[in-house]
């Protein structure tokens, strides 16, 4: 038992050490310390390093986290139990840090610039890691002490918090919250009137906010809206019908390009009316979805995913190629795409455009919601749960899936139209595979099969990164890591779809019944 504790201390130290080395090598220690500095109301000027204190604080916080997690793993009853594992943890972490400072410190001393190989490790950032000391050995010792002490502190904080404070407070808080949630809150939310109030509030908000928050926010929220549309569309085929589509972006691209070719002056000069072009673009996307589904959808498994993946790549490469330059504008894309008009008036200011996007989101969300509860929608869900059973109950699985794919492609086409029209430009780089990966991810993050979940997912995935502009270099890295962590910790998403209760109420455990609050 005790040996296991020591080993877990060692591993924790090693893992944190590796994380620290990685953060240093990608240059995140500077950024992290800068963020801390900003948090304390002391923003760092561009091209300067944060103050020493914040660097120390950042390193120490990492060590505190490491120590606390070791202590948590052990479930200590007495403090003496965690002393030696935590000391080992701190020592390992400190040694790794010290080694890092020693190695790179000597490079700086020898005048070697390692930026040829590790772009983020500038001499200044090494100096910063060495806590502005001149001698690498001295810095290494200081770091060893700092990290060990901070780890110990972390364990101490965890122990005290866990022992003295939490036991009583936690219990009362949780029991109080529990009763409130059980009785009043749920009833309040589940009442239809609450839904109408929320909807009304949202509408009022959506009417007023775009006028207030400026063009940058309109742009961001417009992007979010377009991704919500994409999410709802993909949800029809993937979330409800259970058929994975990886190359969803191809329908988006086809919608955008069809619209662009019909309304832009450059390659063909058709300059069609917005609404007519929108309808045609949506129809073309739907047709392409239909044609792709025709030969593929009576197969099972991942074939649709693979075929659409290949198709998306084909579309992107063709759009970029010289072969179609005369027809689609080639790598330069299409400019001056037409904006929406209403009775002859242009309504393409950014405020009007965001109204249009919100309107479309409401419309599509409403249609999708009605579809889900219809006979067709229930058929889709049956196919997702078990295709053989669905077939046996009389659902034509092939045509149901084909319908789902066609509708889903149509929604993607609509999103593409809005995207192209808002940006007044579209090019091959707007339709890379990453877009469809983003859409799959936002659907999963929000909760598969659930429209409010998709909205939250779109806000989290497309809205948040826009806010976190400072860490823009690290955005995609954090995105990948978060995706993995999300799947490990909460695979059903933030707002999981409510599954129908299959149990016969008569068979149900009385206790279970009480818990469900029926």
């Amino acid at each position, binding site marked *: 038992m005790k040996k296991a504790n020591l080993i877990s201390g060692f591993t924790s130290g090693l893992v944190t050490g590796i994380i620290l080395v990685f953060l240093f090598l990608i240059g995140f220690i500077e950024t992290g310390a800068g963020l801390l500095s900003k948090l304390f109301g002391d923003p760092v000027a561009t091209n300067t390093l944060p103050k020493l204190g914040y660097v120390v604080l950042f390193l120490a916080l990492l060590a505190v986290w490491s120590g606390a997690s070791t202590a948590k793993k052990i479930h200590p009853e007495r403090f003496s139990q965690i002393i030696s594992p935590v000391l080992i943890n701190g020592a390992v972490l400190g040694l790794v840090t010290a080694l890092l400072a020693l190695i790179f410190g000597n490079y700086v001393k020898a005048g070697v610039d390692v930026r040829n190989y590790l772009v983020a490790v500038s001499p200044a950032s090494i100096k910063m890691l060495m806590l502005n000391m001149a001698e690498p050995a001295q810095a290494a010792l200081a770091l060893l002490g700092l990290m060990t002490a901070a780890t110990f502190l972390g364990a101490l904080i965890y122990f005290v918090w866990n022992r003295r404070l939490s036991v009583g407070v936690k219990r009362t808080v949780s029991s109080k919250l529990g009763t409130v949630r059980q009785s009043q809150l749920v009833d309040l939310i589940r009442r239809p009137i609450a839904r109408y109030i929320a909807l009304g509030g949202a509408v009022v908000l959506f009417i007023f906010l775009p006028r207030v928050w400026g063009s940058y926010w309109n742009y961001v929220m417009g992007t979010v809206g377009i991704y919500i549309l994409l999410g709802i569309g993909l949800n029809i085929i993937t979330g409800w019908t259970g058929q994975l589509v990886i190359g969803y972006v191809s329908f988006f691209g086809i919608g955008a390009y069809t619209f662009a070719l019909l309304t832009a002056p450059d390659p063909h000069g058709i300059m069609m009316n917005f609404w007519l072009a929108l309808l045609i673009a949506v129809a073309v996307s739907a047709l392409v979805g239909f044609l792709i589904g025709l*030969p593929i959808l009576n197969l099972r498994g991942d074939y649709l995913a693979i075929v659409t993946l290949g198709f998306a*790549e084909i579309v992107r490469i063709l759009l970029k190629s010289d072969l179609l330059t005369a027809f689609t504008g080639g790598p330069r894309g299409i400019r001056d795409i037409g904006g929406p008009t209403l009775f002859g008036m242009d309504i393409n200011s950014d405020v009007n455009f965001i109204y249009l996007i919100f309107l479309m989101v409401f419309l599509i969300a409403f249609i999708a919601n009605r579809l889900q509860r219809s006979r067709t929608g229930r058929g889709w869900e049956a196919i997702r749960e078990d295709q053989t059973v669905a077939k046996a109950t009389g659902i034509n699985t092939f045509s149901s899936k084909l319908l789902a794919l066609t509708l889903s492609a149509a929604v993607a086409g609509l999103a593409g139209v809005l995207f192209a029209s808002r940006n007044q430009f579209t090019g091959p780089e707007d339709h890379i595979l990453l877009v469809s990966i983003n859409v799959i991810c936002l659907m999963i993050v929000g909760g598969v099969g659930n429209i409010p979940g998709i909205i939250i997912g779109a806000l989290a995935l497309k809205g948040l990164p826009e806010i976190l502009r400072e860490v823009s270099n690290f955005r995609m890295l954090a995105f990948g890591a978060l995706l993995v962590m999300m*799947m490990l910790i909460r695979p059903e998403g933030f707002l999981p779809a409510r599954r129908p209760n299959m149990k016969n109420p008569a068979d149900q455990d009385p206790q279970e019944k009480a818990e469900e609050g029926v």
Partner: protein
Amino acid sequence: MKKLNRKTLRTLHVIGKYGRWTVGIALALFLTWRIYQVLFVQQAFTPDTWLRFALSGLILGGMYALIAIGYTLVYGIMFMINFAHGEVMMIGAFCCYFIFEILRFIPAPIAGNPELVFLNAHPILSILIAFLVGMTVSGFSGYFLEKIAYRPLRHAPRLILLITAIGASIFLQNAAMLLFGPQRKNIVNPEILDRTAGWTIQVAGKPVLISYTGAFSLILSAVLMIGLYLLVQKTKLGRSMRAVAQDQDSAALMGVDVNRVVSQTFIISGILAGAAGVMWGIHMGLVNHITGSLPGIKAFTAAVLGGVGNIPGAMLGGMSLGVIESIGPALLGIDFQLKDVIAFLTLIIVLIIRPSGILGEKLTEEKL
């Protein structure tokens, strides 16, 4: 109204069923006509050019095959598309770059040439070190990838696993970009493996260069593939891998440690991808963070082409994809920019006409 609707749908179903063959035959006719045009009417290329295309296709195909085996092994066992596999290959290519860079700066002076460096003094040893390090690091990446990201999700739905793989792929790609920078890096080979040197043979009176790096990659990938085939067919590890691929639960009941076998599968596929990465580095000479993504997708395509879950299929699929990709544009007389289009179109056509892939067994509808 409703009845009519049903009838239409029924017709569609029939079209989907038989349309497959119609499309296939029409396509075959078109292709034959087009190839006839290019080969006999236009006579666009001379035989030596064709040989050159075929050679570069085979070399590329060897690397695709190695990566495709990794996809197939993992798919066979876990039914997941390991999207991060291309990134494991990129790690191998980076290992090659760093090993060669380090060895380039270690002096190994001999009498008569005081400026000689280790890389050129012991080229075979250097290449061996590069392969060993590349394969080890990639094998470990595969192992840790499985252990950290996939193992906790062993019984999760496939969609969840796929998202995790996509997340891991994005993470690894961006980590490489932040660590080593976005620009492409030149890999300096030992002098004996100069990329422009090679044997020259005469074809129809014109010289065709078979580069040393190309021959080396092709032979090595063949050796590795034979080795893997023997491993899967003859050893106990291979037998347990096949057992787990067939039925996880029964294999567990027969005393196979499933977790261990899955780990070993990931290590093996990582090692093969690492070898492919080092070869890529030696033959192509350029590496950056997106080195792995397109070969990754292509290799997956190759795995599906040959019949997913089938190892000889992956080899055949990789080789044929490489050759199709390099000969295809010339054969059809279209732009070389479109070689990826041809690769993916082949995939789609094969899937439509023969969904189980070239070598895949005829699957029951349940498995499809």
